[in-house]
């Protein structure tokens, strides 16, 4: 056992009485939604008598703040909010304990733009300043060495769709299902699939994080959370398309009354891959990209990913 | 250009009749004094003539350009100085800016407030405020001038002086002046006709013409003053009795 684990074991208080978990009502959080709606997590935790309380967030910052305050113990998040909190707390706040989803972010542009050179002078959007897609977009645009800079305007996902529909922006680097929404409903097309920019097309979209305190106190519970996550992912990866679509649609509707129509969700599901692989090697790259485009202050992502629960699972 | 009242009645919401079918004709250029007990409806009457209050029944005829009105309380605008208060009346009467300055000064001198023209109302004494209100009423320069106890807050000497000013103004301009007073002697001294109002409801109890002859004869004037006082006292006593019975 590594030094980390000894320390953790020292404070082990056995299974938690309650697990408070946060996630978004987003397609990329489907494992969380499925794990809830199919009772996978509940089945896992029942044996310890651990209760579940789930909280639905709109955005990463609030989820991170809640995690830090102890209002939730674990959360499904984008990698960047997790990374930002990890760096600003000097590694004390949280760990990524499992992957959830990878892929599923694209640069969607209007039909006047057919090759990357035409991005010169355009107005592009990303969902959140310093977020995964924002950094990717800035990095990509920088790499193109365009004759004339493209503007990057961070705005929320819903607003991006609205702006694109109205022709206010020429394109947007957004996650699913918004990329599909722009394609299916607003006549856009995918110019770049982010997957093409990463080795094997794998970059984290959603990860599962847990607060360090909770992890130290209740490793058994965390283990069960990771197990449930993997089980949900397995279900998503094995179910047939129709069943999957129906389950996700229902879970989304239950969580936030989603009104995205089937075509959008179906298209989006094709773009996203679910996997518990946390892709640990990608984080330092994310940090370096961000620093390179002038977002954030950089730092060392070492130790962010803690794979011990996943490791135990494989045994 | 006088004022005509025809069967004018007034009641406020929740009160009985305050003024009851009052009719009188006030001719152009008349100087009328209104006497009556406190609360009998004198201010209400002036308010109706000024068009600030509609009668409950009956009708009045007044000059179309309205009447200048000096309120019972000074009613100065607190954010304006004494001279600005007077100036506003001139401005709203349409006088051009360049001519107003001199006129304001003149009016304030008339009421002996030449030295206080730059003071705000809250820096003036009660009597000074009343005199600014008087200056403002004169600034309006309408054919009909209504005055509600214009000299109540003034000392005898200042009052005397202003009596003279008012008399001579009336003689020079031929305005129709209707003024309310509590001072029987003041009424005799200034007016050409005195209306005595009864109270609850207000009706005309007595009308007296004052001739110059009577005015200038101290004995006759004193006798009239006594007589009017007696009338008023009798009226008052009646009410006291009523009050005592009804209570």
């Amino acid at each position, binding site marked *: 056992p590594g030094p980390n684990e000894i320390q953790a074991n020292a404070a082990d208080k056995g299974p938690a009485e309650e697990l408070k978990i946060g996630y978004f009502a987003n397609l990329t959080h489907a494992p969380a939604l499925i794990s809830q709606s199919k009772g996978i997590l509940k089945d896992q935790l029942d044996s310890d008598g651990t209760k579940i309380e789930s*909280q639905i967030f709109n955005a990463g910052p*609030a989820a991170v703040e809640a995690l830090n305050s102890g209002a939730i113990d674990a959360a499904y998040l984008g990698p960047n909010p997790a990374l930002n909190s990890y760096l600003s707390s000097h590694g004390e706040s949280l760990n990524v304990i499992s992957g959830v989803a990878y892929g599923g972010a694209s640069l969607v542009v209007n039909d006047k733009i057919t090759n990357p050179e035409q991005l010169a002078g355009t107005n592009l959007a990303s969902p959140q300043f310093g977020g995964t897609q924002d950094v990717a977009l800035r990095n990509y645009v920088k790499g193109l060495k365009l004759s004339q800079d493209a503007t990057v305007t961070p705005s929320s996902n819903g607003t991006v769709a609205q702006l694109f529909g109205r022709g206010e922006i020429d394109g947007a680097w957004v996650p699913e299902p918004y990329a599909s929404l722009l394609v299916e409903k607003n006549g856009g097309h995918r110019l770049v699939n982010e997957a093409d920019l990463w080795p094997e097309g794998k970059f984290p979209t959603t990860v599962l994080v847990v607060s360090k305190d909770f992890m130290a106190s209740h490793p058994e519970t965390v283990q069960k959370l990771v197990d449930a996550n993997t089980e949900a992912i397995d279900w998503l990866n094995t179910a047939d398309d129709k069943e999957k679509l129906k389950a996700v649609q229902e879970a989304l509707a239950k969580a936030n009354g989603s009104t995205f129509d089937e075509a959008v969700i179906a298209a989006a599901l094709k773009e996203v891959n679910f996997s518990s692989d946390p892709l640990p090697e990608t984080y330092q790259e994310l940090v370096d990209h961000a620093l390179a485009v002038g977002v954030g202050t950089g730092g060392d992502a070492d130790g962010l990913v803690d794979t011990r629960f996943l490791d135990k699972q494989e045994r | 250009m006088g004022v005509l009242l025809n069967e004018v009645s007034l009641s406020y*919401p929740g009160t009985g009749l305050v003024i009851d079918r009052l009719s009188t004709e006030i001719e152009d250029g008349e100087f009328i004094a209104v006497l009556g007990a406190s609360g009998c409806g004198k201010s209400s009457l002036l308010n109706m003539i000024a068009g600030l209050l509609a009668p409950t029944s009956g009708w009045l005829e007044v000059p179309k350009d309205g009447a200048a009105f000096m309120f019972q309380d000074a009613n100065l605008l607190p954010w304006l100085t004494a001279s600005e208060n007077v100036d506003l009346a001139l401005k709203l009467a349409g006088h051009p800016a360049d001519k107003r300055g001199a006129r304001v000064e003149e009016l304030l001198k008339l009421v002996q407030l030449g030295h206080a023209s730059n003071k705000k109302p809250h820096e003036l004494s009660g009597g000074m405020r009343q005199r600014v209100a008087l200056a403002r009423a004169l600034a309006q320069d309408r054919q009909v001038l209504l005055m509600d106890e214009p000299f109540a807050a003034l000392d005898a000497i200042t009052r005397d002086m202003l009596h003279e000013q008012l008399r001579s103004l009336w003689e020079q301009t031929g305005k129709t002046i209707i003024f309310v007073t509590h001072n029987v002697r003041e009424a005799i001294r200034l007016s050409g006709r005195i209306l005595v109002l009864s109270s609850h409801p207000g009706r005309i109890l007595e009308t007296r013409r004052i001739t110059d002859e009577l005015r200038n004869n101290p004995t006759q004037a004193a006798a009239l003053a006594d007589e009017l006082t007696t009338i008023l006292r009798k009226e008052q006593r009646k009410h006291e009795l009523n009050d005592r019975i009804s209570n």
Partner: protein
Amino acid sequence: MSSMTESRTKLKPVLALKLRPSGRLDALVAPLLTVVVLVSLWQIVSWVSPLREDLFPGPISVAQKLPQLLADGSLVSAVGNSLFRAVSGFVIAVVISTPLALLLAHQPLLRKGVGPLVSAMQVLPSIAWVPAAIILFGLSDATIYTVLLLGAIPSIINGLLSGIDMIPSQYKSLSKVLGASKWEHMLHIELPAAMPGYVAGLRQGWAFAWRSLMAAELIAVGGSLALGVGSLLQRGRDLADLSLVMLVILTILLVGVLIELAVFAPIERKLLRDRGMSRTGESNG
């Protein structure tokens, strides 16, 4: 008797006033009429407009949204939750701010020191408090109330303070002459005299409370936090569902109109009538 010429005017009883329908009724009919006119306009514009239905939904498509939201009960419960939070939070805010404002009014140095900060706090957007509130209180109603209170309190304090500042100094003299203690002065003279300004401040405070609540309700839903109107609004935005956004806006407006008509307008009317004044255009009978 002199005949009517153009230079004379005849003043007669104002019968019109008595023939007019009751002011109470008017107060309900007029806003309703306004709403009908506005909605018709909106429908016409949405027909004429070249914008796609999903970018500019007309009243009909918004109305079609309603049954679904009513069926799953989310709209009703969201309104219920938000209204409960807003009203209870507002009451707490009033209870806290009133003595604070009185304290500031009677401690000149304190007022000089803290007064400008209170005004400055009014301009601080509600989301500024969210991180701190979450860290202190986690995901509980306490967080929501904190954000709400910090939004409403400064505004109510300022309202009452400016009401007190406008009290004519003669009332202060009176209170001194009558030998009122500081408490008696506050209770019997200061508060009633400042009432009209205070109520104006309360109305603004209510607006701040409600708006801060909307911001606070964006933090999270489910679990420990019940769904509120703010969350519903954000959901509409996130889903790029403008019909939902419009529906929520209309609901908020409706709640606002009802609170105004049922609470603030009558209080204000009574206060003014007590002082022999009236809202412009209303007779004070």
